[in-house]
């Protein structure tokens, strides 16, 4: 009896072995999207005809005895800031709906398609990725598959929800300050934010060029590793993309955690969260034999600097539209963008110089440890429309603070895996597994170990 919601790896194996056709798999995904998207609101565009055509191509390749690729027939979706040939790249906005359709797929879409994967659509996000909630005033809120009254987190909320709900086993999103890790934690799935520059951002709509990363959402660690491996490699079309050769992670997963120095982040990362969240990190830390504590220095200031760079670069990108059509922005982003456009250069420059200082301190930390554990989010998924959050007894604004544990880390481009912690009868939460730059394989090894012990997992909840 095949598993009801196989991961991408096992789905591709079944298709390659001829147990099921790619067309049947893609048709089933499209049917599930049609059934559940009206309530989840995670897809903004569904490419049914194109996807069925691509699935047919995979089936024909198999029939002809050709290698259809490691992701043969696997349906996937992308946050709607990825260019899809022939589709308008909305980036969650109304403004971009007036632009021409994209001429060519984003590099990462091309690489997944080359591996046999089948693109089924584009997914909802906060406008221009400026948010942690995916409550979009133009297109409505995305809903959490674990509780439809709750938010998915953001900004890649549509991508996370689609994977959590079992609509697709794989999706791509972006993470500038936490936008892969926050929604993967709140929706209870795996999310990988690789090292800054590791994956090409070519032909994706930017938010903050200094801080933007792309990465996969999956329901298994091996899928994260496989998708990441297939997408790695230099790309002259993204000036920030590294020239380093690909370092494959999938072959590393079975190496376990022996010899890894694993520590739990204290101070900043051990306060301002609901007690259950910190207990869960401790529990997983014990399972990993993490006895050390480390202090990531000046994490609060790092978050502040990331905030300034984000507001300044993000606003500058949209200056022309802010001048001409401010009324067409999402009400949740408009006034932040307008204010960000007025930031004095000296604040921005100090934030960038601080980034270099802070990177050097954290590099020193990774001389002592290989892996650092920290919570991903301060709380489980809040209700849609909720505006405040109680942290350590203090009522605080929800929107900026959901990312308080993610923002200081993406700021210096560290590779991080969010692992999903399921709690019976309660909403899922997440933990960040943080490695030194370019050590994605170590973070994924730790995630694979926890998965093998049954401590982290991404089962599909029963949808209404």
């Amino acid at each position, binding site marked *: 009896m095949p598993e009801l919601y196989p991961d991408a790896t096992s789905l591709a194996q079944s298709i390659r072995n001829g147990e099921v056709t790619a067309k049947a798999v893609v048709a089933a995904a499209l049917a599930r999207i049609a059934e559940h998207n009206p309530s989840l609101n995670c897809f903004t565009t569904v490419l049914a005809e194109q996807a069925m055509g691509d699935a047919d191509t995979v089936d024909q390749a198999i029939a002809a005895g050709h290698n259809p690729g490691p992701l043969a027939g696997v349906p996937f979706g992308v946050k709607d800031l990825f260019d899809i040939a022939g589709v308008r790249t909305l980036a969650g906005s109304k403004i971009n709906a007036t632009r021409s359709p994209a001429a060519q797929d984003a590099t990462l879409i091309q690489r997944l398609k080359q591996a046999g994967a089948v693109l089924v659509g584009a997914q909802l996000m906060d406008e221009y990725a400026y948010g942690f909630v995916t409550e979009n005033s133009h297109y409505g809120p995305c809903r959490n598959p674990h509780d439809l009254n709750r938010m998915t987190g953001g900004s890649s909320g549509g991508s996370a929800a689609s994977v959590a709900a079992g609509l697709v086993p794989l999706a791509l999103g972006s993470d500038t300050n936490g936008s892969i890790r926050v929604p993967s934690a709140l929706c209870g799935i795996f999310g990988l934010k690789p*090292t*800054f*520059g590791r994956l090409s951002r070519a032909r994706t709509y930017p938010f903050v060029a*200094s801080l933007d990363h792309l990465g996969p959402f999956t329901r298994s660690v091996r899928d994260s590793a496989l998708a990441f491996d297939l997408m790695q490699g230099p790309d002259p079309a993204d*000036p*920030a993309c590294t020239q380093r050769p690909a370092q494959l992670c999938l072959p590393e997963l079975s190496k376990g955690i022996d010899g890894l120095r694993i520590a739990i982040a204290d101070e900043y990362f051990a306060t301002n969260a609901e007690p259950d969240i910190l207990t869960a990190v401790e529990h997983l830390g014990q399972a990993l034999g993490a006895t050390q504590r480390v202090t990531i220095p*000046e994490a*609060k*200031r790092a978050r*502040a*600097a990331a*905030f*300034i760079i984000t*507001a300044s670069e993000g606003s500058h990108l949209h*200056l022309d539209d*802010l*001048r001409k059509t*401010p*009324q067409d922005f999402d009400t949740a982003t*408009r*006034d*932040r963008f*307008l*204010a*960000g*456009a*007025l*930031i*004095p250069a*000296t*604040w921005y*420059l*100090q*934030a*960038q*110089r*601080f*980034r*270099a*200082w802070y*990177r050097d301190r954290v590099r020193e930390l990774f001389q002592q440890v290989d892996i650092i554990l920290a919570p991903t989010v301060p709380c489980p998924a809040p209700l849609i429309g909720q505006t405040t959050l109680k942290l350590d007894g203090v009522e605080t604004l929800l929107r900026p603070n959901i990312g308080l544990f993610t923002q200081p880390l993406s700021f*210096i*481009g*560290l590779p991080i895996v969010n692992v999903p912690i399921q709690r019976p009868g309660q909403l899922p939460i997440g933990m960040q597994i943080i490695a030194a*730059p*370019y050590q994605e394989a170590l973070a994924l090894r730790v995630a694979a170990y926890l998965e093998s012990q049954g401590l982290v997992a991404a089962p599909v909840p029963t949808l209404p």
Partner: protein
Amino acid sequence: MNQEPMDYTTYVEQAAAVVGLPIPPEYHQSVVENFERIAAIAQLVMEFPLDDDVEIAPVFEP
């Protein structure tokens, strides 16, 4: 940076004029409030002493 609490109303008006960014009156109060939040956060960054040799990474290599 100014340590005293500042009224950013005038700053927002004048900086917006300098960069040629008209701010519709109905958004003005909210933009000022957003700028106040940014300014409070920027203070954390600005008060941190950095040696002269700490440079921005022109191509950021983590």
